[in-house]
Structure formats: structure tokens, C-alpha cells
């Protein structure tokens, strides 16, 4: 427990527009900038998925106007196979890095972590500002690939070598497109490393008086655990990207083996290892799955508790389980490589921890679900998305049972089963976490309420829609439908095309439902009903700020002092059924764990 406010970065409120809204040092502004970037990225990523889905449902159909985006990629509006793969690569990269990593972790974490620990700002505000702007540059470097002569890379977000490392001879976009991809992700890693450093230091050193680690809200714990993962995972991906760029521009052969022949030309490479890229990539890639989902777990726990009006059955078990996920996430990455040609004994070594990771996941789901028992659950847009998160996480999680086993992976590897699995468990679930966080914290961030009716419409359409899209993906995978095909020409795939058409229609409707959210977000930002300081009657420090949105230094003249565990709901106090962390009022506590 520390009173370390003297160490918190203190800077005066900026006065110029540029320092206030653009190059701001304020963690709240940086959080909102991350959110805006993630929103833009999500809309682009979703738009790309629409184009891909239309192509997969009706391969020869012309999409009006598509030729304007790429004359060569879509002559007459009909997508070429390479353009499909290029859109797919961009969809995956944009979504995984610039949405799923950015929004739940960097956006909400930046805004609320310092406030939840009781700090005035992050300890290194210049690093924090740099973290956002570096990420911003990374995003545009990636998008720039659309504007180079042969377009973005077609190698998928995993960029398997040697296809990604041999240069333009590998196919359209495999030259400049890959270099831009690797540069973008390398830059992104720098941003995330700077962010992780700030998050960890904030949590460890800037906790206000009375805020012990165990009194941190679950969202703060989730961000802290995620930043520990980020610090190690991105530190591996960044050098991997540098090596990949060197293979392109410096004549090295880190990832290209000898004696490869492409287009009847013997390639001028020798001695590299194809599997090295996979090891480096997945050593990052699997923790990345948890980097995307653990913040969502924290947000969902935080939102649910406020809406259940009671704490979780165990605060401590949830924290330990999230920690266990983080540790195990490094031991399981080889399950992406069961059929890669890696030593088959390694597959078994990676299979057991992969199966074992279901234990902390199950504990988390059971604690969430059985904490609902006997609660006074409030149904609103935020709690609906939090509950939807649980449903999605379970649905995506159980398919992990299959993929954790090498022998079953023989059948399901590289099929739509995998696509369904990860979209539900890390894509949609994480998105639901973002939505829950948005509906919950929007009043604090803007001083206005979001429209609840529109929020519920958004939820119902999204919940039904995502199941309609991603459950059939599992069925397609079980029938052996291979992923990353731009058209289905194999005989056995023909009967499955109507399923793809169904999914396309569902995807278009579900995507359109997200526009309801965007409208609600923008409309409420300017014309929403004014929000009080604590509209949801919550306990944690973000609801104790003297104004809404919080002032520049978060707490005005006096830093708060923390007297309670984070979730004192279901008590009898002068304010109602809860007592705030910063309130000195003594009440009979519930479920306090020491």
C-alpha cells in the first residue's frame, strides 16, 4: 500500500487546442484517442469483412463501385482471388491489433486505470502520448499498403514464412505489402511496450492511500495482468518483424530455407528456418489472444458486479484465474503448430497445458454465472453486453476443447471451425466487452447518457446475429471447409456454398446493427441526456471524481483515500445499497476477503 502521489506525473492543464486535444499528455484524452482510432479501425475492418463475405457467398458477383477501390483487384467490381486474400489479411491485422488490442486495453485502460488506482495521471505521460501516436502512425503505415502498386500483402495476419519472406516473387503484395505490414506491426509493438510500461508502473507505484492490490477493481487487475503479458509478447514480435523486413531489404535468410524454386527461379536464399517464424509469431500470438480477452474479462466483471448489486463470489479467485491464464498462455502456443511439421512429441507437450487452460477459464465462467444467483440483476445495455460476453466466451471456449487435441486438429486445423472458434472467443466476446465498457463508462467519459433503447436494439441484433454468423462456421469446419479460400472450387465444398450465403446475409445484417451503435455514440455525445457523477450507483474511484467528466488531474484538490474493498454492494449505507471505496462510512461489509 503506498501513498505515492508525489511520484505521479503532474502537469498543468493545457491551454492550447493542440496540447489539449492532439498532442495531449492527459491519460483521459489519450484513452479517448485510442478509442477513436479503434472505432475507425473497427469500421474499416467490418467493411472489409462485408466485401469478403459477399465474395464468398456469390463469388462472381460484381460489387458496385468496388473497382474504384482497386482497379486491378476488382475489375468491373468482381474481386480477384488475390484481392480477396489482401482484404482478408488487412481485416485480420486491423481487427486483432488495432481494435481488439487497442480498445479494451489501451483505450479503457488509459482512461480508467489511473483513476481507479487514485492517481492524477500515468507516471510517464510523454511515453503515454508517444504510445498513442506511434500506434496511430503504425495504423496508417498498414493502411498505406492499399495505395502501393501491388496492394497489401496476401499472406494472412499470421504472415507465415517463407511466403512472407521471399519478396514480390511470392505473389501480389508479398513485396512492399509485407514490408509495410511488418513495419506497421513493429511500430505497433513499440506503442504497446510503452503503454505496458506505464500501466505496470501506474498499478504498482501510484496507488492512492488505502488502495492495496487486493482493493483494486477487477478491471484494474485485468489491465495490469494484460500489460505484463504485453511487455513480454510484443517484445518478441517486434524483433521478429525486424528480421522479416531484413529478409526483404538486406538479403538475409532468417525465414527462408535453401533451394526454393518459385516461378522456375532458384531463390537467392539459404539456411533459414521456416518454422522459426511460426515459433516467434505464436509465442506472441497466443498471449495476444489473452491480451485481447483478459481486459474484457475485467470490464465484464466490473460491469456485472455493479449491475448485480453484489460482489462476485470470490474477488481473489477471479484475479488468480486471470493470472493463471496469463502464465499458461505462454505454454500453449504450440497448439497452433500441431500439423506444422514440428516434432510430434512437442505437440503432446503443448496439448496438455492447452487442455489445462480450460480449468481457470471454467472457474472464471462458473464464478460469473453463479454470482448471478441471488443477485438483483439490473438489465441495461451494459449488463446485457456483459452477459452476452459470458455466453459468447463459453460458446467459443468449448470449441477450444477440440483444437487443443492434436489428433482432432488433424481434421479441424485450417478449417472454418478454427475461424468460428477464435471469432467467438476472442473477437466477438472481446467486442462485447468493449460494448459493455462503452455503455457503462460513456457517462463518465462524456458527461452524457447513451440511449438505452437503441443500446438494447443493438444488443439483440448483435447477439443473435453473431451466433447466426459464427455457429455455422463450426459446422463448415467439421465438414472440412478449408479457410482462406477465395472461392470454393473443390467438389466437396459445392454443397456448402448455401451455408456461406446464409452467413453472408447474417453478416450484412449484424454489421448494419453496429451502425445503430455508432449513431447512438455520436448522437449521445452531443445530445444525450446529462449524466450525474455516479449514474449507476457504483463504488470504485472513477465514480468519486468531483466532476463528470473528471477534471484534468482527476480528483481536484485532494486525492481520495480508500477505505473499502472495491465492491461493497448489497450493504445498508447512507447512500443506499452500496458504499464507495473513498467513503469513510463504516458499514457491515460483505464478502471481504483478507
Amino acid at each position, binding site marked *: 500500500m503506498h501513498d505515492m502521489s508525489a511520484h505521479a506525473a503532474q502537469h498543468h492543464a493545457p491551454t492550447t487546442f493542440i496540447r489539449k486535444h492532439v498532442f495531449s499528455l492527459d491519460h483521459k484524452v489519450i484513452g479517448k484517442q485510442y478509442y477513436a482510432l479503434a472505432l475507425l479501425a473497427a469500421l474499416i475492418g467490418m467493411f472489409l469483412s462485408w466485401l469478403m463475405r459477399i465474395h464468398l457467398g456469390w463469388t462472381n458477383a460484381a460489387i458496385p463501385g468496388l473497382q474504384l477501390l482497386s482497379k486491378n483487384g476488382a475489375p468491373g467490381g468482381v474481386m480477384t482471388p488475390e484481392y480477396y486474400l489482401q482484404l482478408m489479411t488487412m481485416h485480420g491485422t486491423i481487427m486483432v491489433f488495432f481494435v481488439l488490442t487497442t480498445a479494451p486495453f489501451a483505450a479503457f485502460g488509459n482512461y480508467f486505470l489511473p483513476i481507479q488506482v487514485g492517481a492524477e495521471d500515468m507516471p510517464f505521460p510523454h511515453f503515454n502520448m508517444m504510445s498513442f501516436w506511434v500506434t496511430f502512425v503504425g495504423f496508417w503505415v498498414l493502411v498505406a499498403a492499399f495505395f502501393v502498386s501491388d496492394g497489401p500483402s496476401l499472406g494472412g495476419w499470421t504472415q507465415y514464412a517463407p511466403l512472407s519472406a521471399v519478396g514480390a516473387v511470392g505473389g501480389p503484395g508479398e513485396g512492399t505489402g509485407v514490408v509495410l505490414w511488418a513495419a506497421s506491426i513493429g511500430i505497433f509493438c513499440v506503442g504497446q511496450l510503452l503503454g505496458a510500461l506505464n500501466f505496470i508502473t501506474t498499478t504498482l507505484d501510484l496507488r492512492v492511500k488505502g488502495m492495496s492490490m487486493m482493493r483494486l477493481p477487477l478491471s484494474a487487475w485485468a489491465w495490469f495482468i494484460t500489460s505484463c503479458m504485453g511487455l513480454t509478447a510484443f517484445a518478441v514480435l517486434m524483433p521478429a518483424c525486424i528480421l522479416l523486413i531484413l529478409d526483404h531489404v538486406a538479403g538475409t535468410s532468417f525465414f527462408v530455407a535453401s533451394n526454393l524454386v518459385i516461378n522456375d527461379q532458384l531463390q537467392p536464399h539459404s539456411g533459414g528456418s521456416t518454422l522459426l517464424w511460426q515459433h516467434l509469431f505464436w509465442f506472441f500470438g497466443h498471449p495476444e489472444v489473452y491480451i485481447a480477452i483478459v481486459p474484457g474479462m475485467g470490464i465484464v466483471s466490473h460491469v456485472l458486479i455493479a449491475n448485480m448489486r453484489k460482489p462476485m463470489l470470490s474477488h481473489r479467485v477471479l484475479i488468480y484465474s486471470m493470472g493463471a491464464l496469463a502464465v499458461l498462455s505462454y505454454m500453449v502456443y504450440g497448439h497452433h503448430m500441431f500439423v506444422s511439421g514440428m516434432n510430434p512429441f512437442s505437440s503432446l507437450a503443448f496439448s496438455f497445458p492447452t487442455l489445462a487452460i480450460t480449468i481457470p477459464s471454467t472457474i472464471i465462467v462458473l464464478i460469473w454465472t453463479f454470482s448471478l*444467483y441471488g443477485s438483483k440483476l439490473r438489465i441495461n445495455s451494459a449488463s446485457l453486453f456483459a452477459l452476452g460476453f459470458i455466453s459468447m466466451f463459453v460458446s467459443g471456449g468449448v470449441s477450444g476443447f477440440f483444437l487443443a487435441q492434436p489428433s482432432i486438429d488433424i481434421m479441424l486445423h485450417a478449417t472454418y471451425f478454427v475461424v468460428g472458434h477464435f471469432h467467438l472467443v476472442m473477437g466477438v466476446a472481446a467486442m462485447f466487452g468493449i460494448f459493455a465498457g462503452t455503455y457503462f463508462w460513456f457517462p463518465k467519459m462524456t458527461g452524457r447518457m447513451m440511449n438505452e433503447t437503441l443500446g438494447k436494439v443493438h444488443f439483440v441484433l448483435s447477439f443473435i446475429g453473431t451466433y447466426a454468423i459464427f455457429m455455422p462456421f463450426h459446422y463448415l469446419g467439421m465438414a472440412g471447409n478449408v479457410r482462406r479460400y477465395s472461392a470454393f472450387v473443390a467438389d466437396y465444398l459445392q454443397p456448402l456454398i448455401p451455408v456461406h450465403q446464409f452467413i453472408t446475409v447474417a453478416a450484412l445484417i449484424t454489421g448494419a446493427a453496429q451502425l445503430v451503435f455508432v449513431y447512438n455514440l455520436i448522437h449521445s455525445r452531443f445530445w444525450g441526456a446529462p449524466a450525474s457523477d455516479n449514474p449507476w450507483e457504483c463504488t470504485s474511484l472513477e465514480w468519486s471524481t468531483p466532476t463528470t467528466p473528471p477534471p484534468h488531474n482527476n480528483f481536484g484538490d485532494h486525492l481520495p483515500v480508500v477505505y473499502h474493498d472495491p465492491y461493497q454492494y448489497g450493504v445498508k449505507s447512507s447512500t443506499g445499497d452500496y458504499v464507495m471505496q473513498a467513503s469513510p462510512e463504516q458499514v457491515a461489509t460483505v464478502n471481504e476477503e483478507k
Partner: protein
Amino acid sequence: MAKFFAVIIIVIAIASAIPILRHTWGAPEDISTHGALIDEQMSETMAEAGISFLAAQFVLALFIWQYSNRRPDAKIKNFPGGATGLVIAAMLLVGAEVVALGIFGVKAWADVYFTPPSASAIPIQVQAGQFAFYFRYPGPDGTFGPIHPELINEGTQNFYGLDTDHDADAKDDIVTAEMAIPVNKEIHLLMHSKDVGHSFYVRELRVQQDFVPGLDVSLHFTATKIGRYEIVCTQLCGLGHYNMKAYLEVKSQEDFDNWLKKEAAMQ
């Protein structure tokens, strides 16, 4: 709204399970000697995952139905046994499941990967390249001629870079675009990539294995049913990936011998 949501969860859970129970989509009939264990493992996992899925969704829906929008004076309760009971239950149930699936899975995996091919297994080489498979049979001498990458030339149809003028072993090699194998005979498949990563996937054979450029991997299997099956590439290999496929013909020994003779004559 809460009750409506609970009903949606139940309806979606049941609707999701129906195609599985009715086997609307799924793997085709197994034609391999090792596939039965994989299929069994799949059914066991489906049962366990399916029950977990349905139970979790039902309990979630039940609690949402039961405990939402209660009267303001309603009492807050905790689930009997609290977190400890749940943690123990999760550890025991999921732990047992993990151990069971893990141990059983080892057997299925070992059957494919930990047993060497028998001495009598028929060696066939498959070479993957953007965007086609080519197969090579060693001919009467039983030995494959060496590959000279610099000689690989699609224009002259020297797909393997063979030097038949100088390498005696290469002279009788038979290179084909279609893979034929005799039924009930073990095949030792030697996998080689000439350019980038590819994969060899035959659903009916319960076989999927990546090609690793620079590293030749091998696989062995026995097909038990005569027929024509599709081989597809499952590792993204470039713009023509979707169209990279070949056929596997499982023939009687006699038909296979005749086919090989005919192919040899065409070299």
C-alpha cells in the same frame, strides 16, 4: 427484456445443437486404418463439449430469468458453497476431462505419428508448389533420383528437377499429377515443398500435414476403401491457394499396377 434475453439464449443453444445431433454436416466416412481412433476422440469431445455448452447456457439463462429486475426489498443471497465449491467442481470435472481426453488423445496421435512405417510400405513422394501437387513413384529400382532445384522447370514439365541423363536412379522415376495407391497397402508419403508452405489434407483419410520448405517430412497411412477422393491444400500459399487440389485414387492392386505401368510408359 431479461426474460426475452433468457429465452433467446435457450433458443440459440438448442438451435446450435440440432445440426450436430442430426449430423447435418460433418466429416465423410473414414477410409483409413488409423481414423477410427480420431473419430472416436471427436465424438467423445463433442459429447463433453456439447454438454458443457448446453449446461452453461441454460444455467446462465435461468439465472438471468430468475434474478433480474427483482423487487427493491428482495434479499441478496450467495450461491450455497460459494466460490470454493465451484473451484473444486471445476478442478475435478474439467481436470478429469482434461486427463481423460489428453490420455486418450495420445493414443490416437501416437497411432499416426509415433509408429514408423513398416518396411513393406510403398514409398510415394509428393511435391507441393504454387499451386499444384505432383507425385513421384520410384520405379522398378525402388529409389528416387536426386532433386536438382536449378533444373526445376514447369515449361519443360520437369517438375522435380530430375537429371535423367546423368542420374541412374532418376531414369525410372514416374511423376504424375494424380495420386493413385493400392487399397489396404501401407503408403509411406514423403513430403517435399519446392517453394512456400503448403499442406496435404484428405478428409476421408483423416490426414492433414503441412509441407515445410527446407525440411522433408513424412507420413504413413493405409486406405481401406476403393474410390476417388480430393486432396486439397490447407496452408495459405498465394493467390491460387483456393484452387490447389489433386485427386487420390484408391485402386485395387491390379488396377494400381496397370495404372502405374501406363504412367511409366508416358514418362
